[in-house]
C-alpha cells in the first residue's frame, strides 16, 4: 500500500509537470509539421502566462485569462509567421528574438502595471482553474487498487490538464485523418507539390503557426492559472525548450509527443521528490544530472544513437515560388 501511495504521488506530479510540456510540444508540432521551425515556444508560453495572469486578475475570471493568453500568444506567432513566411527571414533568428522580447517586456509591463516586483497579484480561487473531481471519485476510493488510482491520479486535475491529454488524440486525428492535416504535412515536406495543386503554401503555413499560437497560449495559461496563482518572472524556466526537445524526441508524432513529455515530466518529478536521497543500485545521483537528463537524452537521440529523428523535409526553408 505504501508503494502504491508512492507511485501515485510520483505519477500525479508527473501529470502536472507534463501538462504544459504536452501543450507546448503539440503547438510546436503544428508549426514544424508545416515547415516553420519555432524555437520561440518558450516566449509564447511566457507571454501567454503573463497575459493570463493580468487579465484573470483584472476580470477575476479564469476564462478571460485563458482567452487573453491565447490572443497574445497568437499575436506573437503572427510576428514569427510574418518574419519567417512573408519576409522569408531566418526562422531561428526570429524565434530567438521573440523569446527575448517577451522575457523583457513581461517584466517591464508587469512592474509598471502591478508594482509587485516581477509578479502579477496572487489570484483568488475564482480567477483560477479549479481542480475537477471526477464523478464518484470519493465513493470509489475504497475499492482496492483501482479506487486510489481513479481518485488520485485520474481525478483532481485542472480542466486544462484534461484538455492537454485530449488534444493528443485530437491532434493525431487532425494530422492524419483530415484534409487540413494532410495539406499541413505536405507543406512541411514538399511545398512545391502543394503549390502545384493550387493550394496556397503561405496560407497553410500561417494556419500552422496560428495553431501553434493557440496551444502555446493554453500552455501559458495553465502555468499561471492552474499550476500557480499568477504570473512570475521567467516562470516558463526553459519549459519551452524542453517541449522542443520532447517534440524532436517524439520524432514529430503526436502520440509519441505525449510519451516524451510524460518521460520528461517524470524526470522532473523524480528529481524534485528524490533530491539528495540515495537510490538503490545507482547510489546518490546529483540533482544537476537529473535536471540535465532531458537535454542529454535529446542530444543522444538527435545524433541517431537511439533511432533517428528526421525533421520535416522543408522545415526551416522559406518557400519561394518559382519565377
Amino acid at each position, binding site marked *: 500500500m505504501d508503494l502504491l501511495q508512492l507511485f501515485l504521488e510520483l505519477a500525479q506530479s508527473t501529470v502536472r509537470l507534463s501538462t504544459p510540456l504536452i501543450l507546448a510540444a503539440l503547438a510546436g508540432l503544428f508549426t514544424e509539421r508545416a515547415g516553420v521551425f519555432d*524555437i520561440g515556444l518558450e516566449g509564447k508560453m511566457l507571454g501567454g502566462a503573463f497575459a493570463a495572469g493580468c487579465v484573470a486578475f483584472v476580470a477575476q475570471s479564469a476564462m478571460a485569462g485563458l482567452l487573453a493568453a491565447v490572443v497574445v500568444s497568437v499575436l506573437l506567432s503572427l*510576428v514569427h509567421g510574418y*518574419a*519567417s513566411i512573408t*519576409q*522569408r*527571414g*531566418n*526562422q*531561428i*533568428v*526570429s524565434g*530567438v*528574438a*521573440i*523569446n*527575448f*522580447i*517577451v*522575457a*523583457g*517586456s513581461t*517584466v*517591464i*509591463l508587469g*512592474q*509598471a502595471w502591478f508594482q509587485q516586483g516581477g509578479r502579477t497579484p496572487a489570484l483568488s480561487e475564482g480567477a483560477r482553474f479549479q481542480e475537477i473531481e471526477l464523478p464518484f471519485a470519493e465513493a470509489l476510493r475504497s475499492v482496492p487498487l483501482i479506487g486510489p488510482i481513479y481518485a488520485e491520479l485520474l481525478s483532481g486535475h485542472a480542466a486544462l490538464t484534461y484538455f492537454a491529454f485530449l488534444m493528443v488524440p485530437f491532434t493525431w486525428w487532425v494530422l492524419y485523418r483530415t484534409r487540413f492535416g494532410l495539406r499541413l504535412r505536405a507543406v512541411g515536406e514538399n511545398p512545391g507539390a502543394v503549390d502545384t495543386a493550387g493550394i496556397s503554401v503561405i496560407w497553410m503555413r500561417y494556419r500552422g503557426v496560428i495553431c501553434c499560437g493557440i496551444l502555446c497560449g493554453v500552455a501559458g495559461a495553465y502555468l499561471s492559472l492552474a499550476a500557480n496563482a499568477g504570473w512570475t518572472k521567467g516562470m516558463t524556466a*526553459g519549459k519551452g*525548450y524542453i517541449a*522542443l*526537445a520532447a517534440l*524532436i524526441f517524439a520524432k514529430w508524432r503526436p502520440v509519441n509527443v505525449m510519451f516524451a513529455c510524460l518521460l520528461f515530466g517524470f524526470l522532473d518529478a523524480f528529481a524534485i521528490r528524490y533530491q539528495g536521497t540515495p537510490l538503490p543500485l545507482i547510489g546518490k545521483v*546529483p540533482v*544537476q*544530472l537529473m*535536471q*540535465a537528463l532531458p*537535454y*542529454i537524452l*535529446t*542530444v543522444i537521440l*538527435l*545524433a*541517431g*544513437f537511439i533511432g533517428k529523428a528526421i*525533421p520535416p523535409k522543408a522545415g526551416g526553408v522559406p518557400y519561394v515560388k518559382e519565377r
Partner: protein
Amino acid sequence: MSVPYAKLPAWAEYGLIPLVNLIVAFAVAGLVVLLVGESPLEAAYHMINGAFGRGEYIGFTLYYATTFIFTGLAVAVAFHAGLFNIGGEGQAYVAGIGVALACLSLDRIMPWYVVFPVAILGAALFGAAWAFIPGWLQAKRGSHIVITTIMFNFIAASLMNYMLNRVMKPLGSMSLETRTFEAGGQLPKLDWLMKIFGLSVGTSPFNVTFLLALAAAFGVWVLIWRTRLGYEMRTMGHSPAAARYAGIKEARIIVITMMISGALAGMMALNPIMGETYRMQLDFVQGAGFVGIAVALMGRSHPAGIIPAAILFGVLYQGGAEISFEMPSISRDMIVIIQGLVILFAGALEHMFRPAITRAVLAVSGRGHTEAAVKGA
C-alpha cells in the same frame, strides 16, 4: 540563396540598412517606454549620460563591450560557414573552468602576465571543447546544430552548477563561487589608455581583456578574408554544394569552425572572472552569449561592424543601469527587449525595408549609377 534585390553601394548595404533597422528597433522600444508611462527622450538622455558621462562610465561601457566583442565574433565566425551557434552562452560558461583552473593553480606563484596567457589558453580550450561536441555531431551524425547547441546551454548550466556546488567551491563556503584569486589572477585595468584621453577608469573594471578582444577581432578578419581556411568556410556558407564540388571537406570545416567559435565565446569568460570579480561565480555569463547573436547580426558578421555593435550594447548595458537608477519603472530588462528587437529587425526582418531603401538609393544616386547597379544584380 539568391538575393532577389538589386545590389546596393557598400555605404547603403553596410551603413544605411543596419541603421534603419536599428532606428526601428529603438522606436519600438520607445513605444514600450511610453506604455510604461515614461518619456523615451528622458530615458535616452539617461542612457547616453550613464554610458558616457564620466570616465568611469565609459570604462563600464567598454568593459561590457569587451565581453560582447568576443561573443559577437563567435556567432559571426559560425555564420560565415552557414552555422548558427546559439551555444555561446554555454561555451563561455564552461570556459570559466579553464580560466578558474589557470588562476587557482598559478595566482599565488606567478605574476598576471604569466597567468593571463595560460588562462586564455584554458578558456579557449574549454570553450572549443564544449563547441566541438555539437560540431562533431552535426558533421558526422547530422544532428541540427541549433538544437544541439541549445541543449548544450542547458547541460552547461547543470554542469557548472554541479562544479561550483561540489568541486570548485572552497570547503565550508556557502556561496557558489571559487575562492578569490590573489594578485596573479587579477588583470590590470587600462587606466593608462583612459589617461591618454584625460579620463579616469575610476572603479570600473575596464581591463586588458579589451585589447585581447581587439586582437581577436583582427584575427577573425585575417582568418575569414585572408586565409585558405576562411575562404573554405565562406564557400561552405554561401553554397554547401559548391564547396563539396570544390573538394572542401565539409565535416572538417564544420568541426573547425565550431571550435574556433567556441574558443572565441570562451575567451569572454576572462573578462568578468579575471577582470572584475577575481573569482568564478554562478551564472557569470549573464546572457552575454545571446547578446552575441544580436551583435553579430547588427555588425553583419564583419569585425569592423561587430566592434561598434558591441560598443552599442555596452552603452545599453551601462546606460540601462543608469536608466533603472533614475527611472525605477524601467528596469534593466529593457535591454533584453531592445536586444530582442535588434535581433528581430536586423536579423529576421532584415529584408523588410530593403526594397524601399533600394528604390530610394537608386533614385538618389542618378541614372548612370542605376544602370550599373541593375547590371550588378
